[in-house]
């Protein structure tokens, strides 16, 4: 076997894990509200910077900082729904108006992060999860990356099972299908959507923290992360929880194997090329809605 292939596989899996976390949150929110929440990207950034601030600047225990950051980003998402998007939905704003509003919120929050922390690239920690390195069939994987992979698997499983077996999951599906009918049959759609924003934003927060530990953080990282999550969602099937995960790993593999023989700068071109191919030939994605 070519010696580079195991490493490419490892890199693909790690990229897929991070993209899947963004796609999970994005799909959960999009599937429920049917609006393209650009603000989802900056929520990841906020999580990364919260850990950076608490752990690196204030010396807090890293795991405690991660937990606080994830919950905090959940609240950021929740508040954005409660005080911006819900108000607009109540005024029957169109999807385009909602999109522009979420872009505005994204830009404002990104600017605030840059003002507080500067625009410089930062690393979260130099001694967390980097002490151990494993060799799997010739591919090198760090302890941090293993934690990211485990987090992605765990979050996907918990979310998937919750959607299938809990009343909450069924209510989310009902709202996703027909919010008006869901309201008439007694489902408190606004409350459920607020919870969806909280959960989806927490998952995006995990993705931001994962990126922070894997490479580093910068105020503009949210847009790139969001775009990869969105591409994964479209490839897998927008609004489908498992579809987004499948699309994320597919994207991770295509990106990393795509640059096997060429420069890494081609990564984004390959990702968007695949997106365009899917939009032309399979716009519903791999696991698009049935019927």
């Amino acid at each position: 076997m070519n010696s580079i292939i195991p490493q490419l596989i490892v890199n693909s899996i790690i990229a897929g894990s991070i993209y899947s976390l963004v796609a999970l949150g994005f799909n959960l929110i999009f599937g429920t509200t049917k609006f393209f929440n650009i603000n989802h990207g900056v929520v990841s950034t906020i999580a990364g910077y919260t850990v950076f601030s608490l752990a690196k600047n204030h010396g807090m225990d890293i795991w405690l900082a991660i937990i606080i950051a994830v919950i905090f980003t959940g609240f950021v998402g929740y508040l954005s729904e409660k005080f911006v998007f819900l108000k607009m939905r109540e005024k029957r704003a169109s999807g385009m108006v909602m999109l522009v509003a979420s872009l505005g919120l994204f830009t404002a929050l990104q600017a605030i992060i840059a003002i507080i922390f500067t625009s410089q690239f930062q690393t979260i920690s130099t001694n967390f999860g980097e002490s151990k390195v494993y060799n799997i069939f010739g591919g090198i994987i760090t302890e941090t990356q293993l934690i990211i992979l485990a987090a992605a698997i765990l979050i996907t499983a918990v979310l998937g099972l919750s959607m299938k077996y809990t009343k909450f999951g069924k209510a989310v599906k009902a709202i996703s299908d027909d919010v008006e009918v869901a309201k008439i049959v007694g489902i408190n759609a606004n409350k459920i959507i607020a919870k969806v924003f909280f959960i989806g934003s927490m998952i995006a927060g995990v993705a931001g923290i994962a990126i922070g530990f894997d490479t580093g953080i910068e105020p503009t990282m949210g847009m790139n992360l969001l775009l990869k999550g969105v591409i994964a969602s479209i490839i897998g099937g927008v609004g489908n929880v498992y579809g987004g995960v499948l699309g994320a790993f597919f994207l991770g593999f295509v990106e990393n194997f795509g640059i096997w023989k060429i420069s890494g700068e081609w990564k984004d071109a390959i990702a968007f090329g695949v997106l365009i191919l899917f939009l032309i030939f399979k716009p519903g994605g791999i696991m698009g809605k049935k019927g």
Partner: protein
Amino acid sequence: MSTLKLHNFNKHFYGVKAVNGLSLEFESGKITGLVGPNGSGKSTLINLITGVIPKDSGTIFIADGFKTDKIRAQDMYDYKITRTFQNVRVFEQMSVLDNLMVVLTHRNALGALFERKKNLYEDRTIAILEKLDISEKKHELAVNLSYGQRKLLEIGRAIAMDSDIILFDEPYAGLFKEMIKKVSEIIKELREAGKTVILVEHNMEIIRDLCDTVVVLDAGELLAHGKPETVLKQRDVVDAYLGE
């Protein structure tokens, strides 16, 4: 006894009066037919009562003296009102079973997390599906059902809600003869159970057979109100609509 009273309901679309100063009463244990030519305001009225479209003005009175001007879709569950739609609306990406389970299960915080009393609800759901003859489809996605089966599923959801006031918007449209018979049986059972049933329907045979009272609308206004055998013979009603 009147369980649903509407006072001065108004709705206009771009200057056209779809519902014009309507005040009506609907009694419990009775089936009221809501008829009129296309565009007379029947579906608009149902959409106003259930908060699907916002009204310009109007007050709703529900049993026990409850009165409100605030009519929103999300309040229907508390007001014990439910409905079906002219163009069938079920949760298409959910299984037939889940379409009913989602309206039956607990709504409190703990119940929202895990489906307590799942077996009890599942038994009730299956009993309703068996009554509608679609229990063998319980694990299929609703989107894969035929139009008629989806119509029955939507009616099943209305039964599962156990509301006091049920509004059926053309429940027979697109149904086969056997299905029509089944739906009529269900609507009669609801009357026996003391529910207030409002039925929008074009088929006068069904109206005569089922309804205790008929309300005839024309251009968003009340044209006639009374027993079917009397109202459907009125000259102005025949002129405005029937011509059968």
